[in-house]
């Protein structure tokens, strides 16, 4: 060992990070080098001078304040923007569509007198057929891999791309039953990872929220099944958030009530409370919802946030 290595060797020893040969070499060197022995003593004194340092004791006030901040931050992370769908808004939308359709019909009849006075309903498809390849036969449970989505185009058509034997891309409106079935299939059966499933749910959720359209029964079925059965709590939360954006139906309410009663994750239960409370505020109070919220508000075993949210939801509902 060289004299210039002294500090490193002594510090290694003081930190308990020196190996046996290094310790022996240091001991031998110190025994034969008075200058280094003096230096080593100085280092050890300085080391001792730093003293022992137990962890800081937390004061009660600091602990309480910190835990409060932690609770608030956790709540902030869970906050989502809820946009209730007023029935009046939808009615106005439908009324506007009827007026526009009537106006267009009048114009068409005026321009071409040969046109039929009325168009047979069966002659009009509510949705143009999805563009791209034929939709896969979902009854055969095909494996669609590398699923990606593209945002809606000017006509509200989203793209769903996937690999089977080759890369396929389907373009269509999510309200189209065939496209809705495909989306529902991806959410409930096809997605292999929680991330893939979450992206599909997000797409469905964002689309219906932006389009303000009634969700397809296939989508609702897929999402309620996901909320009920998915093993990943993050995915269940996403499904709950998506369902909360839809107009509440009996099926959706039942799924939320079940989640509130049975889900093991407080974040999911919290989302269920919020959705049920919002639905109860919009329409006439539902007895089962009120009872479930009341049970949660008074259940001492329930998570504090869920209890508090259930209590404030009850206050806000006009009983």
């Amino acid at each position: 060992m060289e004299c210039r290595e002294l500090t490193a060797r002594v510090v290694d020893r003081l930190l308990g990070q020196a190996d046996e040969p290094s310790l022996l070499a240091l001991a031998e060197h110190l025994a034969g080098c008075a200058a280094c022995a003096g230096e080593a003593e100085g280092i050890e004194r300085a080391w001792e001078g730093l003293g022992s340092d137990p962890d800081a004791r937390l004061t009660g006030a600091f602990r309480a304040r910190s835990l409060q901040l932690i609770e608030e931050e956790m709540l902030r992370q869970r906050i989502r923007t809820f946009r209730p769908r007023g029935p009046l808004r939808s009615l106005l939308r439908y009324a506007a569509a009827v007026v526009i359709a009537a106006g267009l019909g009048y114009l068409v009849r005026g321009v071409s007198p040969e046109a039929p006075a009325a168009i047979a309903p069966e002659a009009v498809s509510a949705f143009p057929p999805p563009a791209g390849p034929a939709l896969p036969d979902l009854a055969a449970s095909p494996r669609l891999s590398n699923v990606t989505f593209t945002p809606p185009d000017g006509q509200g058509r989203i793209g769903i791309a996937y690999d089977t034997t080759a890369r396929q891309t389907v373009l269509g409106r999510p309200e189209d039953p065939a496209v809705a079935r495909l989306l529902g299939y991806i959410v409930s059966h096809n997605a292999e990872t929680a991330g893939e499933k979450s992206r599909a749910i997000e797409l469905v959720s964002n689309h219906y929220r932006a389009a303000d359209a009634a969700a397809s029964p296939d989508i609702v079925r897929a999402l309620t099944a996901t909320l009920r059965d998915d093993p990943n709590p993050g995915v269940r939360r996403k499904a709950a958030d998506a369902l909360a954006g839809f107009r509440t139906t009996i099926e959706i309410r039942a799924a939320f009530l079940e989640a509130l009663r049975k889900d093991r994750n407080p974040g999911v239960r919290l989302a269920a409370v919020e959705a049920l409370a919002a639905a109860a505020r919009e329409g006439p109070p539902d007895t089962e919802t009120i009872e479930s919220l009341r049970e949660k508000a008074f259940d001492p075993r329930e998570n504090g946030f869920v209890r508090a949210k259930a209590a404030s939801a009850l206050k806000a509902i006009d009983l």
Partner: protein
Amino acid sequence: MVLTIAAGLTDDRALLDRIREGDTSGAAELFERYAPAILRFADRLLADRAVAEEVTQEVFLKLISRAHQYDGRAGVSSWLFAIAANACRDRRRRDRRAPVIPLDGLPDPPDRTEGAERGLLDRERKDAVRRALNALSEEQREALVLARYHGMPYSEVAQVLGISVGAVKTRIFRAVETLKSHFSEGERAWNAVN
């Protein structure tokens, strides 16, 4: 002080999972486990108990907001210390506080089981340690505090600070050289007065 927290690695990750799932108890449990060590670490680096408390709270709020970014390469405790080291650096930059040690700053909570004389000696010892640490550069102080007081091996200090093991050793050895001079000067001054 040797950290006993590394042993609970699996549990820590389970707690982090709970945070990701929106369960507050995960964050509260991690706070109970690590807040005392993080607070002491911040106090050593910033030499101000009140600011160290703020930084400690900041660390746990960041833990919640960044729980999804934890990649599992380091232990949760190392990750927390890395957040704390960055938070301390940010705080120093933000406050533009020169490395002045506020000796008249907020005292540590009094230990009522100790006598007044013992308390005074403790206070003097703590002040001496603060002065000694203040003689170091920020980089040296970070590395030394983690190794000396938090019992971290060089490799873990390297992970926390995001530097190589060689750089950690260099910083610690230089810190020790500085401390050696600091303490020997202190002794000379003490002997001259007496």
